[in-house]
């Protein structure tokens, strides 16, 4: 549709901004880059809202159903007649919703960073990378085909790498960025193989064909076997591995906490609100495929989501670094979304899980970005991020305090904040599907409330700490972003989300399910209350409790030793038992054979030199025996003639 052609300028603006700030930024005043970046993202946001408005309210519906609109789709690379990669724009409810989320959060982060990053070396670089990231992320969500998604999937990966390693002089940042990239890359391998097998089975990359519930892709898939398993399930699980990597699902979550080495706005944008939900988005994008051809895969997804959410929440209760707590919280919340997709069905109320997941994605983006930005404001003020060393900040940072509280309430699922609504839907969906999952989710929600308020009390209440310099509230650019996001976190729950986003495009009436909501809110309140007791005032209760459960606490505190296992696998196994031997093999066997041939040649050469004894009579001997041998040979030849 003509009207949506304007959406096409979004990636162009962002890419131009990336190139400009990247190439010219270093030579201009730092602020020029900042303002260029912010301005371009502002335009992008405007266009996104415009697109969303046009899509949801004017052109998106055909009959009762939201349809997929492809304003344009250009051939980028052709493999054969059926397999080709297009670059295009696909608009449907979830991509438009993601446009809103990404542009909004990104704008806030751009704005916030103008203050937060001021005076840093490489300010232009920062904005350049931010533009690159936003460009890739937006292109990812509006992809028309799986391969385009993969392309930008990799690009967000690299932007994330660049931004985590922004402080490249710091070894820990370098290590963290490397880890993040490699872990996600490993997951992407699964994704890639998944795509390729899928394309082999279905002969297409295009989403419109792939996800058409009545289309050939879905019907063909189930009969094909791969390594003795149903190919479709294997494929979809492989794709899920890619999602799990990006979205930090267990056991591929290890990179996300380390990624907090990056500047805080980056954590807010990439590692809380947008990139890490790409996995969720991708599953949602391929949802019909999962539903109709990959029921087993979907079950796996549900359990991994559930487990991850509990697991991460547990770890979050013990961490001390405020950003890391938020990181684990992010993992846990994404676990919710994944789990919600896993328990969802297709169409009508069956599809509630899908809607809930997207809804939670939406609200979570707001409040988690807010949480991170608040944390950033705290760090900006006191240059510390260890929970033990801070406290009593409510006096110094009033705006931060209030907005942080709102975010905490939202994430804990206290009405009327946004998290309440989305979490309620998730729990409802889980309840309908599987009681075990529901129970786990409920407990996790309680733990969530506990650790969030542990954080909140720990920062703003608890002990009074003497700071070297009196902390000051952040500058206007930062607080503006905080306030806008806080408003978002507070009210977005009232959006009738199901009207816009649903599993099959048909609007879904949603309402609050009190039979679920009440226990959930109670659990959350219990969590908050426990946190209140433990952390409102400085006391030795936490220490007593932690020493009481001793070993368990230690295990959780060490994040269940997952990092150690990884280090063992990489350093211990790959380096020592694969690469080492490879090099050894190269040096000794392969080269050894070559050198051995040379050595043997020389040896033979040395041994036969005695034929050449210098004695002319010996020469005659050799010559005559040569003749005799030749005679024998000739007799032999003659006898065979």
């Amino acid at each position, binding site marked *: 549709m003509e009207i949506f052609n304007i959406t096409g300028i979004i990636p162009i603006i962002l890419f131009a901004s990336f190139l400009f700030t990247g190439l010219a930024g270093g030579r201009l005043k730092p602020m020029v880059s900042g303002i260029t970046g912010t301005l371009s993202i502002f335009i992008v946001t405007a266009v996104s809202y415009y697109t969303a408005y046009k899509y949801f309210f004017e052109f998106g519906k055909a009959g009762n159903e939201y349809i997929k609109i492809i304003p344009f789709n250009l051939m980028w690379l052709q493999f054969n007649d059926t397999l080709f990669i297009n670059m295009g724009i696909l608009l449907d409810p979830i991509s438009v919703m993601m446009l809103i989320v990404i542009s909004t959060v990104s704008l806030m982060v751009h704005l916030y960073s103008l203050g937060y990053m001021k005076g840093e070396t490489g300010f232009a670089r920062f904005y350049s990378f931010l533009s690159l990231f936003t460009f890739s992320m937006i292109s990812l969500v509006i992809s028309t085909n799986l391969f385009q998604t993969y392309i930008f999937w990799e690009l967000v990966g690299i932007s994330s790498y660049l931004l985590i390693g922004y402080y490249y002089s710091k070894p820990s940042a370098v290590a963290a960025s490397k880890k993040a990239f490699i872990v996600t890359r490993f997951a992407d391998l699964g994704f890639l193989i998944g795509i390729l097998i899928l394309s082999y089975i279905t002969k297409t990359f295009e989403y419109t064909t792939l996800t058409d519930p009545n289309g050939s892709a879905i019907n063909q898939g189930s009969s094909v076997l791969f390594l003795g398993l149903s190919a479709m399930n294997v494929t979809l699980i492989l794709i899920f591995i890619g999602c799990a990597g990006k979205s930090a699902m267990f056991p591929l979550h290890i990179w996300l906490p380390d990624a907090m080495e990056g500047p805080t706005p980056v954590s807010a944008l990439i590692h809380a609100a947008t990139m890490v939900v790409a996995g969720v988005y991708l599953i949602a994008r391929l949802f019909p495929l999962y539903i109709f051809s990959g029921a087993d895969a979907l079950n796996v997804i549900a359990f991994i989501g559930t487990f991850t959410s509990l697991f991460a929440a547990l770890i979050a209760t013990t961490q001390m670094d405020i950003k890391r707590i938020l990181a684990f919280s992010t993992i846990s919340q994404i676990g919710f979304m994944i789990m919600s997709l896993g328990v969802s069905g297709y169409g009508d109320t069956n599809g509630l899980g899908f809607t809930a997941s997207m809804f939670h994605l939406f609200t979570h983006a707001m409040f988690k970005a807010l949480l991170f930005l608040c944390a950033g404001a705290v760090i900006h003020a006191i240059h510390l991020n260890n929970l033990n060393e801070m406290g009593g900040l409510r006096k110094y940072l009033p705006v931060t305090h209030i907005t942080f509280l709102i975010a905490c309430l939202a994430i804990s699922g206290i009405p009327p904040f946004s998290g309440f609504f989305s979490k309620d839907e998730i729990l409802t969906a889980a309840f309908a599907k599987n009681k075990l999952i529901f129970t786990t989710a409920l407990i996790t929600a309680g733990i969530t409330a506990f650790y969030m308020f542990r954080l909140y009390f720990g920062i703003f209440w608890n002990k009074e700490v003497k700071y070297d310099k009196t902390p000051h509230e952040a500058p206007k650019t930062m607080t503006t972003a905080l306030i806008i996001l806080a408003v978002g976190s507070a009210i977005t729950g009232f959006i009738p989300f199901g009207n816009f986003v649903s599993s099959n495009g048909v609007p879904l009436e949603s309402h609050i399910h009190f039979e679920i909501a009440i226990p959930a809110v109670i659990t959350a309140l219990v969590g908050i209350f426990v946190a209140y007791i433990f952390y409102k005032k400085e006391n030795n209760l936490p220490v007593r409790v932690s020493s009481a459960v001793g070993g368990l606490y230690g295990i959780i505190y060490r994040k269940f030793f997952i990092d150690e296992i990884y280090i063992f696998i990489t350093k211990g196994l790959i380096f020592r038992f694969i690469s080492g031997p490879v090099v050894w093999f190269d040096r000794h066997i392969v080269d050894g054979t070559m050198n051995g041939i040379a050595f043997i*040649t*020389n040896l*033979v*050469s*040395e041994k*036969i*030199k005695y*034929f*050449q004894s*210098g004695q*002319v009579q*010996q*020469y*005659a001997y*050799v*010559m005559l*025996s*040569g*003749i005799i*041998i*030749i*005679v024998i*040979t*000739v*007799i032999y*030849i*003659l006898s065979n*003639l």
Partner: protein
Amino acid sequence: MTIDQFLLMKNEILLIAIAVIVLIIDLMTDNKKILFPVMIILFIFTTVIGFIYQTDGELFGGMYRSTPLINMMKNILNTGVLIILLQSAGWLINKAENHENIGGFCFILISSLAGMCFMISSGDFLMFYLGLELATIPIAALVAYEKMKFLSAEAGTKFILSAVLSSGILLYGISILYGTNGSILFKDLNNSVEITNLQALAFIFILSGIAFKISLVPFHLWTADVYEGAPVNITSFLSSISKAASVFILLILLFTVFINFSEIWNELLVYLSILTMTIGNLFAIRQQNLKRFLAFSSIAQAGFIPLGFIGGTSLGASTVLYFLLIYVFSNLGAFGVVSVVTSATGKESMNDYNGFYKTNRGLSIVMMLSLFSLAGIPPVAGFFSKFFLFTIAAKQGYYFLLFIAVINATISLYYYLLVVKAMFINENEQPIEKITSDVYAKLGLAICVLGIVFTGLFGIIFDYINTLSKGI
């Protein structure tokens, strides 16, 4: 006998004339300076005549024959000897002890060449034998030319003893052949030779006699010692001209007299070829003395020649000719440099050549080109000739031989590169100082380089040889 018929022998006659003129000048005048230029001019004249004037016919009832192909062979030999004469100028003129004997040296060398020409022109075994001995005995004298050196005498001793023994065996073979066929004329034998045990024995004796001259393994052992001990220019004469002439006559014998034996000699040459290449290479790897090194390298090179005989095709014959033409250029190029260096400094060891490029650019580049040509590296000519030899073998289906041959070509590349490495890469505190070679040597090397570079690139040369060899 008319003048025309005599003109068939123009090459031999001219050569003998030159030899006599040289001898006369040598006796008549004490001023040795003019001797050399006069001889060179005459020799160039002879060589050019050889290219211009083609002859075709028989003399003495078939004892002597001349065909365009034989003419071409003689041309190759003439060119080679011309180069050698040019290269030996420095050694002869500048060294006092040699200076007196310029005339003798040239006389003997040219007589030997005349002997070779007679040999390849021969139409019967008597002429062949006479030519062979005329070619060999003078060389023995030249090998022992440096009277003051023990090594030279030792080389001479070894050479003459081995040569005499081998020619004795050869003769015995000829006598058996005569006994069984009643003729020593090639054209008679051509029809009457058949595969019997006795004749096969005769064939083997004759073959081994010639193989001795080509230094095929196991008849090669004299080669290295003689090459090392002889004066450089004689070594180059032995390794290229003498070898080439023997190959030519072998070619003629195999393709005419012993054509009925082709099954036997096909097989036999395969084994000899494999042995020769391999042993030659294995010995060459270890050598430090450059002359000895080139000796073994020439053995290894000789091992490639039988590839062209396989199948007994005229294309094969032309390939052998072509190979030898290029081999003469390349080998003489390498020996030419060694000759220049040896006559200027007396150094022959490979280590002495370390850092050679620093002081003597031109010489080391000539050396490198020659070695690359010997190794068969494009675009220099050696590549083409070797490639064609391989092609001949493959066309007959001898893949195993081909395989051994290419492996050996690679090994040979290794030791050729050792020399290149010494000249270009190795560092040396005191490299051989700058050598200014005389105009003769320069001319000689220039001819070599031109030959090395252009013989391959101009395919017409090969095609020309091929048209000649059709009527072998």
